[in-house]
């Protein structure tokens, strides 16, 4: 295996890029996938923000969480196509090609992560247009970089889950008992810093991605959401909740956000590579 990797390393980039590019081409040829991954989070964003209006949570508050949800959904849906690749036969040709298994993993993950990042950027543009972005250009660049790392981590997570699955049916269960709770408990939806919930939020690697984006993406307070009453934006409840529970200062430091998110991506990439590296008869459908 080591010799195999060594021989193929230099020549693997064309294979990786070809596989990644194929992901993009396929994605944009299936329009329903484009709207599917973007539509639901935007609806959630509207409903949550409107539903909690009058309390402390508004469009700006829910924005980073929704952004992460878009990354999560797109990344996951992009990588579970590995199940289709296997069932439709495409995968077998990749498996017997000289491209090593890790190149196949990287191609799939880079392709999926690029799609997720593009969707995230689209939503960011929507946020900037409706809320007015108040972040400095370096902060926006940092947010985009963090989004890219998060996209890689989540696509690799999706790959690891999907690799051994025989059909997409099993994936719905994983989505509702693992992935959605992971998103809910990442500080995307509520701060959740007390009790056992606080522990889960602290241990959840996604928390640091959401926190980082919350730090980098600030919206002009003055920019009103269409139809929103500006007088309701900072209402009475502000005093009731301790400022530390929701304020920027309570978030993990930027360095912590970066370290945890990068480690998350690395661990997931290694997991995806390890699970795909073994040649077994389970590689066939």
């Amino acid at each position, binding site marked *: 295996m080591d010799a195999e990797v060594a021989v193929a390393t230099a020549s693997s980039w064309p294979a990786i890029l070809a596989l990644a590019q194929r992901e993009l081409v396929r994605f944009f040829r299936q329009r329903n996938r484009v709207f599917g991954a973007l539509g639901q989070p935007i609806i959630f964003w509207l409903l949550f923000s409107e539903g909690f209006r009058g309390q402390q949570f508004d469009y700006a508050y829910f924005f980073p969480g929704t952004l992460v949800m878009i990354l999560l959904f797109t990344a996951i849906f992009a990588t579970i196509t590995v199940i289709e690749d296997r069932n439709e036969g495409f995968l077998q040709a990749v*498996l017997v090609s000289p491209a090593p298994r890790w190149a196949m993993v990287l191609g799939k993950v880079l392709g999926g992560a690029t799609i997720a990042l593009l969707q995230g950027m689209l939503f960011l543009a929507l946020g900037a247009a409706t809320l007015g972005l108040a972040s400095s250009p370096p902060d926006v660049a940092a947010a985009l970089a963090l989004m890219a790392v998060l996209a890689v981590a989540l696509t690799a997570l999706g790959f690891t889950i999907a690799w051994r699955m025989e059909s997409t049916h099993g994936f719905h269960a994983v989505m509702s008992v693992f992935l959605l709770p992971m998103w809910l408990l990442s500080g995307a939806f509520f701060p959740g810093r007390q009790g056992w919930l606080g522990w889960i939020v602290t241990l959840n690697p996604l928390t640091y991605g959401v926190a980082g984006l919350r730090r980098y993406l600030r919206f002009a307070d003055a920019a009103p959401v269409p139809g929103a009453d500006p007088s309701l934006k900072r209402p009475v409840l502000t005093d009731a909740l301790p400022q530390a529970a929701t304020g920027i200062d309570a978030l993990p430091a930027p360095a912590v956000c970066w370290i945890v998110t990068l480690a998350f991506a690395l661990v997931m990439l290694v997991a995806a590579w390890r699970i795909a590296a073994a040649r077994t*008869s389970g590689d066939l459908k």
Partner: protein
Amino acid sequence: MHAAISIQGVTHRYGARVAVNDLSLEVAAGEVFAFLGPNGSGKTTLFRLLSTLIPLQRGAAAVLGCDLSRNVAAARRAMGVVFQSPSVDKKLTVAENLQYHGRLYGLAAAELASRRDELLAAVGLADRAGDRVETLSGGMRRRVELAKCMLHRPRLLLLDEPSTGLDPGARSDLWHYLSRLRQQDGTTIVLTTHLLDEADRADRIAIMHRGALAALGAPDELRREVGGDAITIETDRPGELATAISDRFGVQPAVVDGAVRLEQPEGHQWIPRLVEAFPADVRTITLGKPTLEDVFIARTGHRFFGGPNDSRENAQESQEE
């Protein structure tokens, strides 16, 4: 010069079931070689081992001199693999499929482009290059697959059940293109098949039965070994005629489906003798070569398209593989 394929003492198990049992053989470079066997005979497992889809468990195998346990990457570069269920991406166009596949094999852009056009012309799909594969017929998809696998000029082409799911027209097309490619590049062609007429196109065949080799040789040679030519006489009284032939010539004819059947070498010399001896009894008399199915029966004692035993094995194989 290395053998195209060399297999020594290869055994493969799925759990307790032995799919390939201590198999040894060699395929020479430039040959068309077929592994013939019913479902469950182990030929699919052998294809998966040779194509490097699954790793060797016991024994040694080499493809074009590249050992399959030590030098998988080199073996993969040296061969092209055509799968039974096409590995083409239906959402991509014909040209895109070739393009991506070529990049997987590390082909440079210029070479890839010229090779792509050359092969699409060779398999008669130049005018469909821009069409998505999902709009093509099964036969055309198989030809895209074939073109795809020839891109990197493999010296060995490995095909799994190439004719399965194709109508007779598409089948003979495929072989037409296959032999054209073979003439151009001198590629060794190794295939698995359960179709007797397809195996007949090979220079040599290995007949597989329950994971082991039942026979190995050129189709004609194998048929000759069965016992020469088959003479079939249609008559109104087969039983009496068979006895009469036996009494007169000292041979043992059989009665099969209401006809008298006699297997003898130099069958054509028997025809005038039989007709002259029993002019009133012979309605029609035909001379035929034994089929590969006769070879299979003679070597294994089983019918090719099997009884209840075989179908149980099939179910097991499709479950476990």
